[in-house]
């Protein structure tokens, strides 16, 4: 968490954020499902200027036998930031952060996927960050969960993610890059809303106990809104299919 530089104002006098949102307001969200022809399932998600593309392949034969598990499918996840996704060119080689986030996202999705249905197979998830403006891991989880559903892989529930931050002592929902950089705390949360189960919870920075519970409540508000949009996007994708039947 960065120390606020003098002169950087993250709230207006009316209490609005630098992008004009209220503290409890999400960025404009755009979700599309089935955007890639070659993938078994795919999704494109925008949280404001954060743009994510997710693709899912499988359940398939991995080739390497040591990966296989006898009683369930193996989930493999690759989170990657495109070289052009940040202000300065990012090396396309996987960084420590990307390797960690790949693991974190995989663990956020694993409780949702019914992996027991496909023993001795592998499900590959590719998450590509096209433009990074804060909240890439949560947007990645949202996109990957939709891509999994699009691939027809049985899931207990869709997973939706959003980050809550603390900026100048105020809790803000779905923080952007500026707020993430200069804020005091960052709490990414992903959950399965129908089951009311949290699958990802990280905290970077410091929050008091009271702030933590308030932040979690705010995150649930955001997650429920995103969950509705996820379902709408899935239904929109298949609305034509129902008419054809």
């Amino acid at each position: 968490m960065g120390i606020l530089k003098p002169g950087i104002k993250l709230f207006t006098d009316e209490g609005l954020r630098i992008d004009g949102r209220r503290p409890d307001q999400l960025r404009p969200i755009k979700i599309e499902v089935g955007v890639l022809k070659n993938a078994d399932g795919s999704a494109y998600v925008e949280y404001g200027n954060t743009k994510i593309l997710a693709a899912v392949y499988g359940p398939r034969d991995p080739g390497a036998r040591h990966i296989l598990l006898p009683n369930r499918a193996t989930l493999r996840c690759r989170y990657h930031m495109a070289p052009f996704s940040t202000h300065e060119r990012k090396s396309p080689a996987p960084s420590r952060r990307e390797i960690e986030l790949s693991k974190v996202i995989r663990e956020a999705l694993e409780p949702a996927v019914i992996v027991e249905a496909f023993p001795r197979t592998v499900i590959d998830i590719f998450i590509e960050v096209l433009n990074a403006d804060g909240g890439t891991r949560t947007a990645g989880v949202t996109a990957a969960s939709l891509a999994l559903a699009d691939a027809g892989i049985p899931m207990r529930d869709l997973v939706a993610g959003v980050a809550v931050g603390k900026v100048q002592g105020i809790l803000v929902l779905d923080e952007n890059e500026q707020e993430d950089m200069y804020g005091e705390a960052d709490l990414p949360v992903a959950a399965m809303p129908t089951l009311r189960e949290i699958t990802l919870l990280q905290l970077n920075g410091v929050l008091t106990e009271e702030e933590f519970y308030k932040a979690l409540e705010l995150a649930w508000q955001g997650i429920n809104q995103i969950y509705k949009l996820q379902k709408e996007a899935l239904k929109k994708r298949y609305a034509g299919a129902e008419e054809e039947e």
Partner: protein
Amino acid sequence: MREKIDQEIRKIVSPGDILGVVEEFFAGENVYERNGFLISSVAGIEHVDLRDRIVSVTPFRELRKFVPGAFVYVLVTGTRGDIATARVLGFDLVNIYRNNIFGILHVSHIPSERRLRSVDEMIRVGDILYVKIVSRTQPFFLSLRSPKASITVSLCPRCGSIMGRLKEKLVCPSCGYSEERKPITHYLYKYSELRGRQR
């Protein structure tokens, strides 16, 4: 009245949608039960069978699984008495599974007009079969007793060439060896085609 009860309710659902409670319905295909609720596990169309009280979801994208009733291609790797062992190649001959999934074909699952003493009489090592899976766990029990099941490729025991189908027989285009094998309803190569290629 009966027609009224049989009606099905159809609507689009996504994973996590609550479709009912266990007091109302049984969980059908692609539906699971959690804390008394019946929840959809895939994106698809909901079907409510009001007669049998079953709620199920027909997925928009059907995934192929090794489950009883599924048809797979297998390569016969061994024959011994009344049992043949086979390696599952996959659901088609394009995307072949590289990891070893094994199957067993018992002589009782080979259709024949006469009594077979051993599987050797119909199946040979190296044959590719299209068979039905009849068990849930590995090694899968396989069956040729289905109209869709068939020997699809077989090699000549004398010269090793691919044999072609000529009416109810398999004939080698190279050496002329022929034998009667069953079932060959979906055999891949016709004798005339193989013979034409050789010319």
